[in-house]
């Protein structure tokens, strides 16, 4: 199984992009105090709900995927080779 370790060098352009992203995110937090959000549920109405849920949910998706990998990942030719399940 060939691995693709993704540890890219962060280019100056990417750094600028990251800074811009950070600034926009900061601005979105600021808008929370200006724009009223209509909420159907009590939790949804909490300040920063979508900020926290977006960040945490993304991490959970990735961590969940990594956990699943231990359960369901097999060799690329698993079916062709007729291997038994480990």
């Amino acid at each position: 199984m060939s691995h693709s370790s993704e540890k890219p060098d962060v280019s100056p352009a990417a750094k600028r992009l990251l800074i811009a992203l950070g600034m926009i995110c900061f601005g979105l937090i600021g808008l929370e105090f200006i724009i009223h959000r209509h909420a159907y549920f009590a939790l949804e109405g909490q300040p920063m709900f979508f900020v926290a849920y977006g960040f945490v949910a993304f991490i959970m998706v990735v961590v969940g995927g990594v956990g699943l990998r231990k359960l369901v990942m097999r060799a690329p030719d698993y079916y062709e080779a007729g291997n038994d399940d480990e």
Partner: protein
Amino acid sequence: MMNSLLPTFLQIPGLLMVFGALLVPLLPHAIRQIWMLAIIAVSVWLCWGIAPGVHMTTQLAGLDLILVRADAITRPFALFFHIAAALNVIYAMHENVRTTATAGLAYAGAAIAALFAGDFITLFIYWELTAFTSVFLILISRSERSFAAAMRYLLMQVSSGVILLAGAVILWHSGQGLNVQALDASTLAGGLILLAFGIKAAFPFVNGWLQDAYPEASVTGTVMLSAFTTKLAIYMLALCFAGTEILIWIGAVMTLFPVFFAVIENDLRRVLTFSLNSQLGFMVVGVGIGSELAINGTVSHAFASTIYKALLFMSMGAVLHRTGTAKASELGGLWKRMPLTMIFCIIGAVSISSFPLFSGFVTKSLTIGSVAKEGYFVVWMILIFASVGALENSGLKIPYFSFFGRDRKFEVKEAPLSMLIAMAIAAGLCIAIGVAPQLLYGILPYAVEYNAWEAGHVLGEMQLLLFAILAFAFLVARGLYPPQIDSTVLNTDWLLRRLLPRLTMAIARPILSVWFTALQHAKKLVMDGLYIGERASQQTGLVSGVASTGAAAGIFLAVFALLLILLFSM
């Protein structure tokens, strides 16, 4: 009825495309393209004129069949099926493969005909026709792997049809008739028909065929496959099971589990099939809610999803066409070589991620809004989570690993012109629906009273998405994002490919063992009898000559046949 210039059978929507496909192999390449687009144009014109109601009936063996019937949701589905069919033709113009063109046009036609089927027998015919026409799109890859996947695909699709037929027969037997109608999932007939639709809609545990077969199709075949089968199932669910609560939970699970598989899947076209599965879940939830807002959400999401999913499959198809691989572990840095494809891919990515001004935002909001309105808090949380999953799978992973990430130094050209034109049209539609949603809302079955552009809603969506992107940037910059590994990710098709054969063997082995032992004994008995008979004939002359193997086999078979007759007549 609709157009007196056409023979009656060609006035059945979709059949013009099915029969038009028969001429496709005979036409030269350029004329073939014009022919296919012309057929699709005439077909959409015919369909557009069909108002809700019953339009064509017939009788077959004493059964009343409704060949053409339209509902309030039929027109939008028919419209985007035609758009998808036309996009497929344009996308595949660069290749001169008659099988793909023929199968693709017939497949789209069969799916459109199914939309207008007013009874379950007619539906069954088109249901199976979609299976038998689409399987060629997988077979065309001409590898052992694709052949096996095609056979599994066919098995699942045909099984779905057989279950549908069984449900229809039971429904008819119970006196409810054969018409496509609202059904109770708790009855045997309703349950069977729900299962039949569920197989094609890739419900949990019967979803494996989708991830197994679609990525094994050809570059153009996968794009064609992505549009019709699953959306047809969603359409039928909306007609027959709107408001069935169990679908809310089935749909919620559907939105959720594929996002985890997509994180670790290395084949980017397979990632898109997981993502497609998740998107279907949103539609199933909408059907389960069943309110006017939810059905509007399901229909509009099916429309938008078909276009942006096709766009994403097209962009990955273009990458595969040029580089020869769609594996994340082998791709990267293509933005320099395929900048237009990259732009179209990103438009598809932001559309599926529901960024404001793109199609996913105005359609997914309807479904999520309907869930919130009905007070399903857990389901609402799951759908928001799955939206983040869609961003991870299709919004970030697909463009990042193919066009950015590590530069693999591919020396390739931009995608062929036909591919670029098809992607440009699809991208334009994604933006048009996002910027002017009233274009889409205008053809929905019910008036839309939901304002997706409410400032608080836009803010919440932007916060959700941008902080999720921030999490992605954090994981990548820290080297914590999971590496892409060339591997097989076990899915529910494992049940069919491994568990079922093993279970069958485990059950069959003792039976076969007893069977073969019995055969040995029977053979011995027969042979002993022949030996005695031969000796007797030498003395009495009743049986002359030596007992040949053929004679022994003949006598044995006669005894065996007698045994079988006795067994089955008991």
